[in-house]
């Protein structure tokens, strides 16, 4: 039987290719997510080494309330074993943005712009001067050679900056190389002298970190602990974890720890990124299972006479079953191997695709780990054999008499199918709801239940969809009769004649498009939610926002100074811990109550916002009072006049009297603090955003012009009217949907291949019929049209089912999401209809090859085909 399996494969190369293609792509997408992740990890690992350079020990400030100072630096320099030490200041990224010649700043969606204080101490500086000189005085800067080249910064010229402190300007005095060959992965590196960067970042006489070079007289580990206690750190009971005891001033790390730390941070981000890609790859793989199963099923049907003959000459049912499974295993192996190769290519294609929708990735090398290859083979072979199980069982049930009659009913539409379908669908919806809104612990558990639920749902829906596939196909095909006469109605009839085949083929597309339309419904609902919330709660005329919520307070000053504007306030958001007992807490639960906070100028609140205050007045918020949301009041069992205990960074507690209670308004957090109290717990020196009201004595046109004029000085910030801001927010959601759709495009692409596949097999099956049509006068063109429109109808059936399922899932989810997050419900009908239309057109294209083949058949051979 093994020989038979192999001969079958060899004899049916097209069948092999068609079946294999879906697996190749499914496996390829999985492999590409690993290749992309591992390649990026490798390229970032090199980056981590370059970042750490030759620093032996690093001391990083942890307490904003007790930062590292000149005294600490001197103490370190005096410590035996320390050869050299340099204090540095730097941003997390994108705080300091230079303005290019064209008046714009460097986009923040891509690699970051990193500013740091330059040191001439070569051991502690991973950079090497290339051109010009180091920044030696105030308002001088230096840039890495790659960024200078990319963004056309010229040494000797003075550039403007947007910094947390506001606008600044500095002369570019030189360029440098980062590490050995300036591999910055696209980041822009900028060096300033210490005082300048302190000014820009609004830091006092403090250091973010101190880098140390040792003289070797004291062992590194001993030096580490000496420094740690000298800095006043309490003993760390568990030095290996990332937790520090309260009051730890600074983290002391040696070079290896530091590198591991930096690499770990990159890897964590890359693992999440790879995981997201893998999720979409698995969706694509899941879709390809339908395609493969369908292909095996159709092929089994076409081989029925041959199978009957095998049975007649003495093959047992289990031999038949095994031969189909062995055949599938070989297809799995071959296709997986091709898929691994394809995956490497897809990884690079994916980088381009993500770049096209706004997600820029650095370049990377091909890293194909053994684990990737093994995973790909296991997944590919497993998926292929899984797809072949049902067809194999069906094949084994072919009776010997079939060899003579040539017909057998393999497509029995039993009631059981629909019962199982209904149960799976219900289980699936239930599972997804449980995952999203149940009490599942941890992301992994939620994702596992969600995935299992989605699998059950879509398998169930596929089983059920054969009930409706034919009627839907007929309805969709209605316009084809008048349009294309007989070839049009034949296309419709053909799409409807085998509901199970059409349903399974369409199911693949249904899955992809239901996820797209689900996202569209959620996105559209979010849009209307945001719009409504903003309309209701923001009365300000003008908003200043930034991609990274870094709006210099200089903007507030300038707006306040301008007579065109009335009330102006910055808004600051942060998180804080409160030392209050939960109302329903079990005894012994002494966890802090952690929640989000906001601070603003409450004297302006009435004019600019509607905070839905139910009790008290926000104007009463001072450094010793607070306002809380009704849900917080409920959680903690607190009311007006009660005390909320704010925990500061150093562990001390500040009691705040509750002077107001408000309801949720999206822009309000859970707790409102005074700006003074906010500064106690946050080192944030910039506003998240700024709201302003027009001075009513100034005309709207004049105020608009004044607003735009200030905005022109801050090209990295968005200066919008409230209405424009709402539109921008909507387009951001659209942008996110585009990324999502692009990733789901993988699954949709496989689904279209499945349609091409089914059509190719159907055309083969209907050779005689097509021959007859050609004999009685159907032209080649009409034949092609008939096949293409059949594909378009199947495609549209999948798209319609997908849209319906997606919209229903959307309705269920929007209902299930608590109203405080999402109360609005909106269906983007036009976008969904456009999507269905595009799917149908894509179906037309998917069938180009089968249509071409059908029209090229030799009429005489076709008629006499068996």
């Amino acid at each position, binding site marked *: 039987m093994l020989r038979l399996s192999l001969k079958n494969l060899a004899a049916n190369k097209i069948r092999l290719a068609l079946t294999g293609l879906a697996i190749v792509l499914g496996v390829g997408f999985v492999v590409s997510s690993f290749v992309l992740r591992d390649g990026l990890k490798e390229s970032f690992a090199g980056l981590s080494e370059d970042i750490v350079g030759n620093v032996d020990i690093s001391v990083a400030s942890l307490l904003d309330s007790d930062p590292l100072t000149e005294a600490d630096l001197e103490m370190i320099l005096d410590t035996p074993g320390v050869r050299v030490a340099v204090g540095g200041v730097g941003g997390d990224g994108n705080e300091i943005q230079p303005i290019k010649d064209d008046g714009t700043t460097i986009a923040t969606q891509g690699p970051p712009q990193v500013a740091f204080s330059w040191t001439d101490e070569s051991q502690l500086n991973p950079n090497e001067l290339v051109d010009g000189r180091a920044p030696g005085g105030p308002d001088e800067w230096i840039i890495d050679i790659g960024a200078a080249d990319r963004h056309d910064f010229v040494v000797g010229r003075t550039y403007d900056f947007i910094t947390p402190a506001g606008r600044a300007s500095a002369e570019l005095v030189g360029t440098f190389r980062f590490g050995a060959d300036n591999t910055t992965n696209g980041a822009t590196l900028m060096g300033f002298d210490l005082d300048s960067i302190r000014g820009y970042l609004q830091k006092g006489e403090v250091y973010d970190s101190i880098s140390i070079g040792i003289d070797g007289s004291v062992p590194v580990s001993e030096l580490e602990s000496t420094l740690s206690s000298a800095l006043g750190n309490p003993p760390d009971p568990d030095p290996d974890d990332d937790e520090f005891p309260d009051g730890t001033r600074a983290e002391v790390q040696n070079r290896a720890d530091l590198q591991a730390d930096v690499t770990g941070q990159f890897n964590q981000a890359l693992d999440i990124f790879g995981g997201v890609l893998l999720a979409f790859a698995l969706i694509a793989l899941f879709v390809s299972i339908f395609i493969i199963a369908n292909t095996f099923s159709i092929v089994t049907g076409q081989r029925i006479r041959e199978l009957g003959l095998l049975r007649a000459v003495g093959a047992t049912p289990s031999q038949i079953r095994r031969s189909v499974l062995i055949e599938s295993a070989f297809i799995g192996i071959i296709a997986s191997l091709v898929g691994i190769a394809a995956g490497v290519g897809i990884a690079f294609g994916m980088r381009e695709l993500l770049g096209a929708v706004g997600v820029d990735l650095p370049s990377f090398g091909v890293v194909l780990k053994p684990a990737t290859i093994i995973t790909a083979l296991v997944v590919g072979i497993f998926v292929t054999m899984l797809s072949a199980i049902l067809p194999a069982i069906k094949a084994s049930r072919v009776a010997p008499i079939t060899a003579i009659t040539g017909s057998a009913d393999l497509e029995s539409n039993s009631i059981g199918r629909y019962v199982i379908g209904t149960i799976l669908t219900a289980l699936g919806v239930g599972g997804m709801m449980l995952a999203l809104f149940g009490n599942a612990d941890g992301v992994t558990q939620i994702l596992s239940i969600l995935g299992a639920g989605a699998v059950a749902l879509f398998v169930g829906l596929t089983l059920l969809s054969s009930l409706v596939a034919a009627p839907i196909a007929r309805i969709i095909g209605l316009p084809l009769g008048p349009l294309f006469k007989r070839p049009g109605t034949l296309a419709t*009839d053909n799409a409807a004649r085998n509901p199970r085949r059409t349903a399974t083929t369409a199911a693949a597309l249904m899955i992809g498009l239901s996820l797209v339309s689900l996202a569209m419904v959620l996105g559209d609902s979010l849009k209307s939610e945001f719009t409504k919330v903003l309309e209701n709660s923001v009365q300000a005329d003008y908003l200043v926002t930034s991609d990274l919520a870094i709006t210099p307070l200089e903007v507030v000053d300038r707006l306040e100074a301008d007579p065109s504007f009335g009330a102006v306030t910055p808004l600051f958001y942060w998180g804080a811990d409160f030392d209050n007992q939960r109302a329903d807490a079990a005894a012994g639960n002494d966890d802090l109550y952690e929640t989000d906070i906001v601070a603003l100028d409450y004297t302006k609140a009435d004019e600019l916002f509607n905070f839905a205050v139910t009790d008290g007045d926000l104007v009463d918020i001072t450094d010793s009072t607070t306002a809380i949301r009704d849900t917080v009041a409920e959680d903690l069992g607190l009311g007006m006049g009660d005390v909320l205990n704010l925990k500061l960074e150093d562990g001390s507690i500040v009691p705040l009297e509750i002077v107001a209670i408000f309801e949720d308004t999206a822009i309000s957090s859970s707790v409102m603090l005074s700006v003074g109290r906010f500064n106690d717990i946050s080192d944030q020196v910039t506003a998240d955003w700024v709201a302003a009201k027009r001075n009513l004595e100034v005309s709207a046109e004049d105020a608009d012009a004044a607003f735009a004029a200030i905005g022109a000085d801050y090209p990295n910030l968005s200066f919008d009217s409230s209405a424009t801001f709402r539109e921008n927010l909507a387009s951001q959601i659209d942008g996110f949907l585009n990324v999502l759709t692009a990733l789901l495009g993988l699954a949709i692409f496989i689904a279209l291949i499945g349609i091409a596949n089914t059509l190719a097999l159907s055309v083969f099956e209907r050779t005689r*019929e097509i021959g007859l049509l050609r*004999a*009685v*006068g*159907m*032209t*080649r063109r009409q034949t092609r049209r008939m096949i293409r429109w059949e594909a378009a109808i199947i495609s549209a059936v999948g798209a319609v089912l997908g849209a319906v399922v997606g919209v229903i899932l959307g309705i269920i989810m929007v209902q299930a999401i608590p109203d405080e997050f999402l109360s609005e419900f909106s269906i983007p009908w036009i976008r969904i209809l456009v999507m269905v239309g595009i799917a149908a057109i894509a179906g037309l294209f998917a069938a180009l090859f089968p249509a071409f083949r059908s029209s090229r058949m030799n009429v005489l051979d076709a*008629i006499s085909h068996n």
Partner: protein
Amino acid sequence: MDTATIAAAGTIQASKIYGSGDTEVRALDDVTVSFDQGQFTAIMGPSGSGKSTLMHCLAGLDRLTSGHVMVGETNISQLSEKDLTLLRRTKIGFVFQAFNLIPTLTAIENITLPLDLGRNSPDKELLDEVVNAVGLADRLSHKPNELSGGQQQRVAVARALASRPDVIFADEPTGNLDSQTGAEILDFMRRAVNEFGQTIVMVTHDPIAAAYADRVLFLADGRIVSELVDPTTDSILESLRNASHG
């Protein structure tokens, strides 16, 4: 040959050669034949005699190696693929041994298929006439799988008649039927010739079927070896015997 009548179809020095060199097979060897309008011709001959090849070439389903095929006024040897298809749709009718009907179409839709493909609305009177003659008025909305074998062949003949083609080619039209049902189909074809003046060319190996024709051509080794006019079953059997002895 009767020069007073007009030819509906025919070949001039038709040759069809498969393969080359040692494996060369002359399926048709310089055949010149003409089929008169309103005449029912049967083509007989042993397997491999070229009778099917002759019919396929006449019907535009296959191309000659050399020579010409005329259908009506048209020399189809020079037609493009597309014109050939249009010719089959309008000037030629087909009845095959089996699998004559499109399973997704009803009986009446199968009958009007060639007309529908041409986007021509069928001549209502003519269609009624054909449908009446075929005697399936009550089964017209049935799908082929709901019709008996004989009924299916009658639908196939009706389809061939519906477009009033210059000539109908029938390839063993009764080959899959029992003798009584076969006789009904042959009767029906005979009536089409008598009542509508339809030209029919039928390939068969059944002397009883051939006896329904006005004329029988005998083929052997790609050549026409003899011809019978107004044949009977007996005279056909006689000719077949002579052919096999000669």
